[in-house]
């Protein structure tokens, strides 16, 4: 066990801890809420947690430029994911008049 003071001042462990907790909260949002839009927000939170971990490790390795370039690409893909995901939500609403993921069960046996 380590002392908590360096973590509270923000060393590598502190950032990784925040990233992991953010990921877990995002997972909890996706698992426990039924509205598709909130679940989508949970997915965004998880993606952000991954980015925080990436840039924290990059800082520990001497602020490597490669990590920021990767972050740029991740952001581009995240923007694509957001656009398509929200288009799917609008499509679901048009088909079923609902944004509840429990009611989108057309593929259920």
């Amino acid at each position, binding site marked *: 066990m380590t002392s908590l003071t360096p973590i509270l001042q923000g060393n590598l462990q502190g950032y990784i801890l925040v990233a992991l907790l*953010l990921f877990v909260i995002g997972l909890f949002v996706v698992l426990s809420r039924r509205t598709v839009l*909130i679940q989508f927000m949970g997915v965004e*939170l998880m993606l952000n947690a991954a980015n925080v971990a990436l840039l924290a490790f990059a*800082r520990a390795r001497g602020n490597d430029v490669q990590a920021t370039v990767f972050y740029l690409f991740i952001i581009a893909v995240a923007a694509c994911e957001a*656009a398509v995901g*929200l288009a799917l939500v*609008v499509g679901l609403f048009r088909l079923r008049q609902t944004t509840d993921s*429990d009611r989108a069960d057309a593929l259920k046996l």
Partner: protein
Amino acid sequence: MFAIFALITLFGALSVAFQKNLVVAGLCMVLTFFGVAGLYLLLSNPVAAALQIIVYSGAIVVLVLFVIMLLSAHEEEPAGRTMPIQRWGSAVVALALAAGAVRVVLTSGFMQAMKPLKIQGPMNLNLVGVELFRGHLVAFEVAGLLLLATMIGAVALVKKDL
């Protein structure tokens, strides 16, 4: 400073999890993204912080709020059938994962041994641009193509008759 931004981030994320009103949840997500941008600033990476604020708190949250208001889905719909097992199960899974994560991070010798290397100064856009166009030109073009394909795909998904 780190503790403040970490608290802002986690508080915003938790209020997304427990907020009933979807618009307020979206605004709590803005809070989270600003907290994450502050963390990036503390990591001496202002480029990433600016991108985070522009793309996430700017574009993506606006898109989400726009769709919430378009579908007028401010309130969560009443459940068709109540499934308390789902809520409790997800809480248990999340708590177990969080406890495991905290334990792993606090006891990991690898991360304690990892001393941060010295850096010249904060990340600047010049370095990123040179690296992007020297080393990742093809990937950059593919990303542009992906954005175009996504735009067409999103329009095709929501348009009634193409």
